[in-house]
C-alpha cells in the first residue's frame, strides 16, 4: 500500500559555509564594460559603498554573543539582536561562517530578484563533505549549476504542481487515519484520558510515515504501537545530525580530531543514508520481481524516479534521502507549533473549527480539494510558518557577477546570509510580530503583508520541491484533528520557546489535551 507526504527544502541550511577568501579591496571599472558604465551613469551623484564599509562581526564577537549572551541554542534570536546592533546589513567573518547578512525585507527582495539562472545557495561544505567521504551523490540541496537544474526538473515532476500533489490526497489521508487512531490510543493511556505527551515525538512519527509513503511507496510502521527499531534509529540519526551541525560549523577543522562533535555529526548522516538506501533497494527488488514475472510495474513517486531513465541509481539514493530528510523535521515541527498556537488561542481555534465543520458535515473525511477551499486553515499554517520559519536562515551565493544591494556593490562570489527569522519578526512588515494572527493572510480585501516577509519554502526555482506535499499533509491533518478534538494546553508545561537545531524545535516536551468534541456540534 502506497502512502503519502514528502517535503524537501532545497534551501535548508543553518549557515552558509564558505572557505575564507580575501575580500576584494577595491573595484576597477573597465571603460568597455557596459554594465559598469551603466552603473556609473546612474550613480553619478552617489558613490557606491563596498563591504569594507559594513560593520563586521568576527569570531570572538560571535562566540561571545553565543556563549555569554546566551544565544547558542537560539541562533535565530541572535538575528534580532544583531539586527538591532548592526543594522539591516552587516558582514560576518567568523571561522566557517562567512558572508553578508541581510535582515530587511526590502534588501531581501532586491537580492532574490537578481537570482541567477541557476540560483546557488553557496558551498555547503558541511553537507557535501559527508557525501564526498562516503561516495554518495549530491541531491537537490547540495548540487549546483546546470546539473542541479536538470536534477530538479526530474524531481519536480509529479511533486510540485498543485494538480500533481492533490493526487496524493488519499494516501495522505490513510496515514492521518492511522495517526488519529494513535492519538485515541495515547489519550486512553493517559492519566486524564485526553492527554497526549511528548507531541514532538508523535508528530515525527506521523511525518516520517507520511513522507516514506510517498518516497518509498510503503508503510514503515511509525504509527504502530511498537515502532520498528530501524525506523527509530533513523529518527535518532536525523536529530543527531541537526544537533551537531552548529557545533561543527563554528569550530575550526583542527578540533575534529580532539572533540566528539564531528564524528557524531558524520554518524548522524550515516544513519540517514543507511535507512534511505535500504528502502530504495527494497523498492528496486520489488520492481525487479514484477519485471521478472512479466507483471505491470505500477507505482508513484519512487517508481517514477527509478523508471524515468533520467537519474542514475546512485543519484536516486542521494536525492531521495535528501528529500526525505527535509520532510520529516520541517512538517512535524510546523504541525507542532500550529497545534500549540491554537491551543493557546481558543478564538482562532473556534474560527478554524467553524470553517472545517461548515465544509465537512457528519463524519466525512476531507479531500485534498476540500481543504484547498478553507482559507482560514491555510492562514493558520502560513502564520505558524511566519512565527516559526521552517528555515530561519538561508543563503545565496551570487557566483557569476557583481551585485548591487542597497547602496553597496559586492563582487562576484559573494555569499549572502538571508535572516528570514529577523524579517518575519519585523514589526514594520508584520505589526505585532510576536502575536499569532492568522487573519493577516486572508485574501478578503485587506492589505496583506509584503510577500517577501515570509517565504518559508523559498523563492523561485530554488524553492522547496516538496512544498505542495507538505502543505497538503498539514492542511488535511489539521482539519481532521480540529474537527475531532479541541486542543488545550497542559498547564504543567508552561510557555514553550524555540531552540535552533537548523530548524526551530520546542525547548521542552510539549503535551496537549485532545478534548473530544461533542458529536452534536457537527
Amino acid at each position, binding site marked *: 500500500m502506497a502512502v503519502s507526504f514528502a517535503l524537501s527544502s532545497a534551501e535548508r541550511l543553518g549557515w552558509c559555509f564558505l572557505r575564507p577568501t580575501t575580500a576584494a579591496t577595491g573595484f576597477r571599472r573597465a571603460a568597455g564594460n557596459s554594465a559598469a558604465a551603466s552603473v556609473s551613469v546612474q550613480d553619478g551623484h552617489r558613490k*557606491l559603498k563596498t563591504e569594507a564599509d559594513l560593520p563586521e562581526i568576527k569570531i570572538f564577537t560571535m562566540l561571545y554573543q553565543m556563549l555569554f549572551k546566551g544565544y547558542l541554542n537560539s541562533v535565530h534570536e541572535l538575528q534580532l539582536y544583531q539586527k538591532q546592533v548592526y543594522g539591516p546589513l552587516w558582514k560576518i567573518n567568523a571561522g566557517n561562517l562567512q558572508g553578508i547578512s541581510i535582515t530587511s525585507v526590502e534588501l531581501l527582495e532586491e537580492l532574490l530578484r*537578481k537570482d541567477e*539562472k541557476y540560483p546557488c545557495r553557496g558551498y555547503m561544505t558541511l553537507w557535501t563533505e559527508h557525501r564526498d567521504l562516503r561516495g554518495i551523490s549530491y541531491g537537490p540541496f547540495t548540487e549546483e549549476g546546470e546539473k542541479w537544474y536538470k536534477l530538479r526538473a526530474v524531481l519536480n515532476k509529479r511533486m510540485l504542481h498543485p494538480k500533481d500533489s492533490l493526487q496524493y490526497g488519499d494516501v495522505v489521508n490513510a496515514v492521518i487515519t492511522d495517526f488519529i487512531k494513535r492519538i485515541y490510543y495515547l489519550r486512553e493511556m493517559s492519566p486524564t484520558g485526553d492527554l497526549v505527551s511528548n507531541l514532538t515525538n508523535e508528530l515525527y512519527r506521523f511525518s516520517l510515515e507520511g513522507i516514506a509513503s510517498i518516497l518509498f511507496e510503503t508503510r514503515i510502521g511509525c504509527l504502530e504501537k511498537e515502532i520498528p527499531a530501524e525506523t527509530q534509529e533513523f529518527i535518532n540519526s536525523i536529530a543527531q545530525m541537526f544537533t551537531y551541525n552548529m557545533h561543527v560549523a563554528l569550530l575550526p577543522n583542527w578540533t575534529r580530531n580532539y572533540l566528539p562533535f564531528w564524528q557524531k555529526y558524520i554518524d548522524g548522516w550515516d544513519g540517514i543514508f543507511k535507512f534511505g538506501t535500504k528502502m530504495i533497494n527494497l523498492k528496486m527488488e520489488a520492481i525487479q520481481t514484477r519485471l521478472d514475472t512479466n507483471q505491470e510495474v505500477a507505482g508513484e513517486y519512487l517508481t517514477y524516479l527509478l*523508471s524515468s531513465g533520467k537519474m542514475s541509481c546512485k543519484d536516486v539514493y542521494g536525492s531521495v534521502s535528501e528529500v526525505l530528510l527535509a520532510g520529516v523535521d520541517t512538517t512535524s515541527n510546523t504541525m507542532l507549533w500550529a497545534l500549540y498556537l491554537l491551543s493557546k488561542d481558543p478564538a482562532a481555534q473556534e474560527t478554524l473549527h467553524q470553517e472545517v465543520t461548515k465544509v465537512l458535515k457528519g463524519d466525512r473525511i476531507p479531500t485534498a480539494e476540500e481543504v484547498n477551499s478553507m482559507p482560514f486553515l491555510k492562514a493558520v499554517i502560513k502564520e505558524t510558518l511566519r512565527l516559526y520559519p521552517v528555515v530561519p536562515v538561508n543563503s545565496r551565493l551570487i557566483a557569476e557577477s557583481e551585485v548591487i544591494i*542597497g547602496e553597496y556593490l559586492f563582487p562576484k562570489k559573494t555569499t549572502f546570509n538571508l535572516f528570514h527569522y529577523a524579517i518575519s519578526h519585523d514589526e514594520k512588515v508584520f505589526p505585532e510580530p510576536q502575536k499569532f494572527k492568522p487573519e493577516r493572510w486572508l*485574501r478578503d480585501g485587506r492589505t496583506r503583508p509584503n510577500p517577501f516577509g515570509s517565504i518559508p519554502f523559498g523563492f523561485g*526555482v530554488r*524553492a522547496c520541491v516538496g512544498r505542495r506535499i507538505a502543505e497538503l499533509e498539514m492542511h488535511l491533518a489539521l482539519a481532521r484533528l480540529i474537527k475531532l478534538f479541541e486542543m488545550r494546553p497542559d498547564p504543567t508545561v508552561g510557555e514553550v520557546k524555540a531552540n535552533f537545531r537548523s530548524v526551530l524545535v520546542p525547548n521542552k516536551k510539549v503535551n496537549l489535551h485532545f478534548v473530544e468534541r461533542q458529536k452534536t456540534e457537527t
Partner: protein
Amino acid sequence: MSACVLRAFLQRAAVMRQAAQQTISQTRAFPQSYTHIRGINTYANSLRAEEKVTVHFLNRDGKRITVKASIGESLLDVVVDRDLDIDGFGACEGTLACSTCHLIFEEDVYKKLGPVSDEEMDMLDLAYGLTDTSRLGCQVCLRKDLDGMILRVPDVISDARADSEKESSTAPPKI
C-alpha cells in the same frame, strides 16, 4: 546485495522504462490528445485541437512577436515550444513554483480568463512588476475567444538598471 540488485536493475532498465512509460501514461490525470513536453495541460478538446488562435506578445524591447497556437495550449508552452526570445521565461517548467512566466493582459481579456487559484496567487505575489491584470502564463490555456489577444511581457530587474537611490520595488500583493 546492493551491487547485485544494481546489476540486475541495469539489465532490466530498458524493459522497465518501456513498461513504466506505459504505466505512467495510463495514470495521467488528464488525457492529452497531443504531446506536450512541459506544463500541465488542463484543457484538451480533441474536436477543436486543430483550431489555431493568434497571440501577440509585446516583448521587453518593445518588439511584437506574433504566433499561431493551438486551442488548449498553455501560454508557457506557446513560448517554450517555439523558443520565443523571452529571457528567463518558464524557469520551473510549469510546476507553479516560480513567477517567471508572469504576463500582463489587457483588461477585457483578463476578465475572460478563469479563476486564479491560491497557489497561483501566492506565486503572483512574488512576481516583479505585478499589475491588476497579471497572470502566470502556465495557468492560462488558449481558447477560441482569446484569438488576437495582446500580452505584455513585464520587465525584469537587473544590475545594469539598478538605481541605488531608488527604493526596491514592492508590488502590492494582488488580492
